[in-house]
């Protein structure tokens, strides 16, 4: 009522009292119940969408790389840590030093990460295997990832973002405005990265850190990052079938967003993904970071006229356009890998294959850049379609070159085998999927349970953060 509104307008601005290094959201939430409640609602986005099943070509394209084992669409922040631990990508370590992945894989999953970086130093944090910190990284993405505990100001808790921004140059960290910060807190994680091998000296001991690094020195565009990687002669892995030195793009959400119309009009991620909501006379940011389409009335319609239905239709159309070109590209690239494998088998030389492999590297990079950011079809539709057009061209160029090699080795009629289901594709690349799942389950029932207990014992783990968690994976 009108009277209530007046009262509510006054009842605000409680003074925070949050301990340093507090990583438990429920503790912060005591002071900020509205933000906490909405934050906890990210668990409503709980469905697993298996991308490898949707487009099995990806299994072929990533052969020899963890992504070929398991890759899903993102869910709510509530699940970030859980999914990281459950994915087949992180494998089944049995102790602190078994792999396959490095500590860096925790980086974007928890506020325990900045805590550990402070405690152990950034280089030590990035040294060793993932399992090393299993009993320390115990809370999913939370307040401490984005806020300063003293002032509640938005803050960057990851140094590598600051280094990335400063190297890129168009927005130096020191110049970031409040509105910029409403995007940059997201850019800490929603950006393309690679692990930079860094030798360092720990009081006399030589160690090797795998430091999360943003490849931004030459710019944000697909071609610019490609040039950066080429110059370093960097590759994420060598493709199992085609032997191409490959690049993997991971969610360049921020980099593509800035090319889009909303960024050019001054919007930040939080404008759509954390819109202001009103309760009585009070407004606050919804911390239910998720699809803005769940709340079109309070996001799009703040600035646009039209109906929810119209906006859904517009977005569907954009998605369909992206999917059309992305599907062409993945089909072309998967075939290129298989045809290259055949060429090697038929006796092709490195010299003969070199140019084609370079095309595969660049073509697949562009495709990945365009699709790995799941929102980019909307954030930056034109840039994405442009990049996919380039990807298709390079992929086909590679196939043309390989076809000539095949002809020279008497295999001009080779037809790539069928990879139309996830199972067929996994069989093609010789993956023992059953075994991966078995090992993973052993890990989940064993070491993983230990981690929870140890976290609890140390008093850093927040049981609230996994309340009613159900095991949902692509394989169970």
């Amino acid at each position, binding site marked *: 009522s*009108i009277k209530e*509104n007046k009262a509510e307008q006054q009842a*605000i*601005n409680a003074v925070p009292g949050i301990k340093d290094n507090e990583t438990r959201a429920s503790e912060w939430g005591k002071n900020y119940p509205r933000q906490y409640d909405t934050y906890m609602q990210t668990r409503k986005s709980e469905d697993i969408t298996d991308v490898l099943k949707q487009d099995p070509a990806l299994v072929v394209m990533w052969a020899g790389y963890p992504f070929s084992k398991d890759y899903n669409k993102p869910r709510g922040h509530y699940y970030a840590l859980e999914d990281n631990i459950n994915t087949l990508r992180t494998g089944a370590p049995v102790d602190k030093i078994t792999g396959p992945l490095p500590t860096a894989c925790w980086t974007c999953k928890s506020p325990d990460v900045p805590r550990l970086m402070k405690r152990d130093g950034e280089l030590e944090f990035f040294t060793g295997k993932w399992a090393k910190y299993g009993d320390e990284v115990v809370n999913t993405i939370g307040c401490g990832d984005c806020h300063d505990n003293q002032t509640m100001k938005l803050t960057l808790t990851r140094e590598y973002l600051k280094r990335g921004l400063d190297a890129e140059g168009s927005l130096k960290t020191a110049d970031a405005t409040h509105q910029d910060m409403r995007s940059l807190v997201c850019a800490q994680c929603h950006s393309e990265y690679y692990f930079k091998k860094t030798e360092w000296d720990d009081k006399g001991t030589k160690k090797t850190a795998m430091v999360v690094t943003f490849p931004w020195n030459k710019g944000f565009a697909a071609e610019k990052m490609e040039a950066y990687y080429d110059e370093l002669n960097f590759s994420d892995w060598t493709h199992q079938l085609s032997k191409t030195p490959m690049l993997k793009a991971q969610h360049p959400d921020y980099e593509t967003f800035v090319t889009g119309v909303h960024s050019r009009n001054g919007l930040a991620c939080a404008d759509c993904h954390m819109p202001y909501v009103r309760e009585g*006379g009070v*407004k606050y940011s919804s911390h239910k970071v998720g699809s803005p389409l769940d709340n079109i*009335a*309070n996001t799009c*319609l*703040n600035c646009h006229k039209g109906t929810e239905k119209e906006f859904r239709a517009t977005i569907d159309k954009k998605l369909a356009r992206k999917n059309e070109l992305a599907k062409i590209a993945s089909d072309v690239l998967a075939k290129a890998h298989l045809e290259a494998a055949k060429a090697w088998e038929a006796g092709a030389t490195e010299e003969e294959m070199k140019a084609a492999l370079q095309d595969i590297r660049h073509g697949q990079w562009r495709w990945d850049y365009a699709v790995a950011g799941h929102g980019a079809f909307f954030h930056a539709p034109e840039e994405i379609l442009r990049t996919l057009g380039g990807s298709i061209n390079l992929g086909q160029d590679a196939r043309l070159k390989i076809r000539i090699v095949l002809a020279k080795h008497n295999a001009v009629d080779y037809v790539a085998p069928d990879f139309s289901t996830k199972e067929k594709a996994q069989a093609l690349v010789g993956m023992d999927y059953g075994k991966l799942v078995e090992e993973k389950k052993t890990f989940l029932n064993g070491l993983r349970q230990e981690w929870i207990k140890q976290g609890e014992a140390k008093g850093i783990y927040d049981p609230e953060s996994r309340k009613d968690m159900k095991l949902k994976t692509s394989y169970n």
Partner: protein
Amino acid sequence: MKYLAIFLVVAVVAVFANLVHESKMLSYLSSDPKVCITCHTMNTHYDTWQHSSHRNRATCVDCHLPRDSFVNKMLAKARDGYHHSLAMTLKTYGPNLRISNDAARRIQDNCISCHRETVSQMLTNSALYDKVEDGRVQMGRPCWQCHRDVPHGTMRNLMATQNNFINKVL
């Protein structure tokens, strides 16, 4: 049953009286824009108008109420006043208010009445056609399809005018 009826009547009167008091409803009879912002829901629109080219040219009622006759003006005022009060009390409104068809028609009439000279050719043009895009308004096309910023700007969420009239929790 009888008691229930009496109770209901008393309740309605009480609610209404409270409404009249709390919302300074009687002031609606004035044409001072400040009247409209006795409800915080109108703050954004007040604020955007106040920063607009029309600040010194037209008040809320100049655009939003009929200007043809005093009777029509008062009738519309009563209707809107009732509707808005009810919505305010029951909180049936969302973060973005939308102009009603009736109100759109009135506004357009008012734009034209002030700018008749300027838009005379447009009126002549539109008079040639029976089928128009937007049947709500005279001329078949709202002026604010092109003059998108007049006078409220394009972003009109009730929380859009930062910190002015509504407090942000921290």
